[in-house]
C-alpha cells in the first residue's frame, strides 16, 4: 500500500478530508452533516494518513493521544450540558448568543460546543482503534 503515489497524495488528501470534516461539522445544524459524520470523516483521514505514512507520523501530527481527544470531547459535551444549569434552565437546554465580530453576526451556542464534543469523541475513539490496529501491522 505504501506506493509512491499514495504516499505523495496522502498528506493532501488528509488535509482536505480534515478540512471537509470541519466544514461538515459546522454546517450540520442547517444542512446534512454534524459532529458524528464529521468525526467519521476525520477518523478516515487519520486512517489513510496512517496507512500511507506510518502511525508514528500521525501521532506526531495530532500531538495528543487520540483517546485524550476523545475524553476531552466527552468533557466538552458534558460541560455544554451543564452550562444550562447555571443559566437556570434544565440540563442540556440549548443556549444561544449572537455576537457581531468584524461586522458579521455569528450564531454561537452551547449546542455547537456539544457537537464539537461529539466530533472529538468519534475522531478519538475510531482513530485510536484504527491507529492501534495499523501499529500492530508493523511490529
Amino acid at each position: 500500500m505504501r506506493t509512491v503515489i499514495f504516499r505523495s497524495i496522502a498528506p493532501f488528501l488528509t488535509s482536505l478530508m480534515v478540512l471537509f470534516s470541519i466544514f461538515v461539522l459546522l454546517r450540520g445544524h442547517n444542512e446534512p452533516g454534524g459532529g458524528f459524520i464529521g468525526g467519521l470523516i476525520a477518523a478516515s483521514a487519520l486512517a489513510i494518513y496512517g496507512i500511507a505514512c506510518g502511525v508514528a507520523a500521525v501521532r506526531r501530527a495530532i500531538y495528543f493521544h487520540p483517546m485524550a481527544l476523545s475524553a476531552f470531547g466527552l468533557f466538552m459535551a458534558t460541560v455544554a450540558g451543564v452550562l444550562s444549569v447555571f443559566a437556570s434552565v434544565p440540563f442540556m437546554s440549548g443556549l444561544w448568543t449572537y455576537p457581531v465580530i468584524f461586522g458579521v453576526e455569528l450564531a454561537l451556542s452551547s449546542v455547537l460546543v456539544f457537537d464539537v464534543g461529539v466530533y472529538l469523541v468519534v475522531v478519538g475513539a475510531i482513530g485510536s482503534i484504527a491507529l492501534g490496529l495499523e501499529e500492530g501491522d508493523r511490529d
Partner: protein
Amino acid sequence: MSAAAPGTTLLVLMLPFLAALIAPWLTRRLGHNAAWVLALAPAAIFIHFLGFAGEVADGGVVTGGFAWVPSYNVSFSWLIDGLSLTFVLLISGIGALIMLYSGGYLKGNDQLGRFFSFMLLFMGAMLGVVISDSFLMLFVYWELTSITSFLLIGFDHTREASRRAAIQALVVTGGGGLALLAGLLVIWNITGVSQISLLLSYGDDVRASPFYLLALFLVLGGAFSKSAQFPLHFWLPNAMEAPTPVSAYLHSATMVKAGVYLLMRLNPVLGDTAWWETILPVFGGATLLVGTLLAIRQTDLKLMLAYTTVSSLGLLVMLTGFGSEHAIAAAVLYLVAHSLFKGALFMVAGLIDHESGTRDVTRLGGLRKAMPITFIAAIAAAISMAGLPPFVGFLAKEEIYYALWATNPWALSFVAVAVVGNALMFVIGFAVAIKPFFGPEVKTPKSAHEGPVLLWLGPLTLGIAALLAALVSPFTHRFISSPMASAVAGKAEIVTISLIPHLGPALILSLVTVALGVIFYRMLDQLRAGMVWLLSAIGWGPDRGFDQLIAGLVRLSVAVTRFVQPGRLEIYMTVTFLMVAAALIGPMAWYGEWPAMPVWPADAQFHELVVIAIAFIGLLAVIYARDRLTAIVSLGIQGFALALIFMLFGAPDLAFTQFMVETLAVVILALVMTRLKLTSADHRPTGRKLIDLSVALACGTGFMLYLMAVTQQPFNTALSEFFSAYSKVVAHGTNVVNVIIVDFRGTDTLGEIAVVMVTGLAILSLIRIRSLRAGEIADNDPDQLGPDQNGKVN
C-alpha cells in the same frame, strides 16, 4: 443553641467529612498531636446536639432537612428525638475521646493521617444512620458505615488476617444492608411514606399488611447482621484485627449498635406482634449465651471483650423483643451503660497492649503499681459491666431483672439465660480488669509503665461518666433514658430506677448473679479448658462456614463463566445471531402476524434498479469471493449501494453516515484481518458452512420481515410534524436530524458518545494486550489451530 437553623445542623452533620478531608494534611503538619485538633469536630457535634436536649426532654421531636429528589419524594432529612439524640451524643462524645486515644495509640505510624480520615468518615456515616429520617438516606449511611468499617478493619492491609476479616465484615454487614433496603422498600410500598417520622403513625397498617412478615424478615436480616446476632456473630470477633481504637469505637460502642438502633426505631411499627416477640428474644437470648460462652474460652483481652460485646448485643435484642415498658427501659439503660464501659475496657485493653507489649491475659499480672490510672479506669468499667453499684451498669441490670421476672416457664427460661449470661459477663469484666493488675508482677515483652495522657484520658472519662450517670440518676433519666424509652415505645415513658436497692425478685436475682459470677471466676481456668474441648469436639462453626460459602461461590462463578464464555468466538457469534433471529421472527410466528408481500412498484426508475443491481452484485461477490480481502471489499460495495438508496429516497444524513461507516468498516476489517494473521482463504468445513449459512439466512429473513411489517403500519406523522414545526423555532436549526441529535435528545447523545469512548478504550486495550503477548503465547496464533477454528471475521 436549641432550635438551631437547619443549615447549622446540616453543616454539623457534614463536619466529620470535612474534618476527614483535612486530616491527612493536618497529620503531616502536627504528627499525632493532630488528634487534639481533630477531636474538636466530634466535640462540636456533641455541643451542638446537646442544645436539643431540653426540647427533647420535654417530649419534643425536631425534624428538618432539604428536598433531595423531590420527584420521588426522597429527602435529606433528619429526626431528632430521644432515641437519636442519645445515639448522637454517644457517637460524638465517645468519638472525641477515641480520636484522642487514636493519636496516642498509633503515634509514629506513618499511616496515621489515613487512619484519622477513616475514623472521621465512619463517624459521619454513623451520625447519619441514627439521625436519618428518610429511608434512603438511612440506607446510604448504613452502607457507608459498612464500607468505612471495611477500611478500618483492613487498615493493616499487609496482613492476610486483616484482609480476610475486612472482607468478611463487608460481606456480612453489607449483605445485611441490602436486605434492609429491600425491607424498607416493602414498608414504603405498604404505607406510601418514606420518612420514619411519618411512618410511626402507620404501625397498625404495617402489622395488618400481608407483607408484614416479608418486611420483618428483611429488616431483621439487616439488623441481625449489623449487630452480630447468632449465627451471624462470627464477623465481630474477627474484626478485632483492626487497631484497638477501631474495636473500641466501631465494634463495641457504636456501629454494632446500629442494628439495635434500627430495631428500637422500628419497634413502634413492626413490634408488638407474636413474631416480633418470639424471634427477637430467641435470637437475642441465644446470642447472649453463645457470646459469653465463647468469651470464656479466649485468653486475648480484646477477643474476650469482643465476645462479650456479641452477648451484650444479644441481650439488647432480647430486651427490645420483649417490648414491655420495663424491658425497653432496661434496654435503653443497658445500651448507654454498655457503650460507656465497653468503650473504656477496650481502650484499657489497648493501653495494656501498648505499654506492656502483650494482651494475653495469662501473661499479664501485677500492673497495678505500674499503671495506676489505667487500673482505676479498668476497675470502674468492670464494676459497671458486672452490674454492681454505684455504676450505671447496676441500674441497667436491676431494670433487666425487673423487666424479665415473671413466673411462667417462657419468662423463667429467659431469666435463667439472663442470669447465666450476666454472671459470665461479670467474670469476663473482672478477668480483664483484675487479672492483669493483681497478683505477682509478670515479666512482659515491654517493661510496663503508665501511658501518655492521650491514652488514659478516654477510658478514665468513660469510667467517670458511668459513675456520674448513676449518681445523678434523676438527671440522667430526665434527659437521656426517659426520652429515649419514649421514642422506642412510641408513647411517653418515665424511667425511675435509682441506686437505692428495692427488695424484690430483681435484687435476689442480682445477688444470685453475683454469687454465680464469683464461683465462675474461681473456676475460670477449668471453664476455659472445658470450652476449648467442647469447641474442638464440634469442630465446625459459622466462621468456617463463611469460608466454605465463599469458596463455593467462587467455584459456582467459575463454572458459570466456563459455561457462558467457552472462549470460542464462533459459538458466541452463532448464539448471538440466533437470538437476534429468534427475537425478530419469534413474535411474528407466535401471533401469526406475517407481513403481506409488497407489490412490485410500477413506477420504479431505471437508476433505482441499477442501484439495487449493484447491491445484489456486491452480495454475490461476497459469497463467491475466493479470499477474505475480496469478500470484505465486496461487502463495502453492497453497503455503498445501500447508502445510494438512502440518498435517493431523501435521507442525505443517513446516506452520508452510511458512506463513512462503510469506508471505515472496510478499512478496519482489513486491518483486523492482517492483524490476526488469518490465512487469506476461508477453510471452514461444509458442516460448519451450512450452519453459518442457515443462521445468516434466518437473520436476514428476520430483518426483512420485520422491516416489511414496520413499513406496512400506518405512518404516524406526529413526531415528524412536531420536529418540522419546532426545529427552527426552538432549536434554531433546519437540519432536523442534527437538531434531534444535539438538542432535542442531547442527553441521549451524551450517553451514546460516552459508550463510544468506553468501547474505544476497551478495543484499544484488547489490541494492546494482543501486541504485548504476541510473542509469548504461541497457541493464540490462529494459523496453528485446526482449520475449523479460524475465527470468523464478520
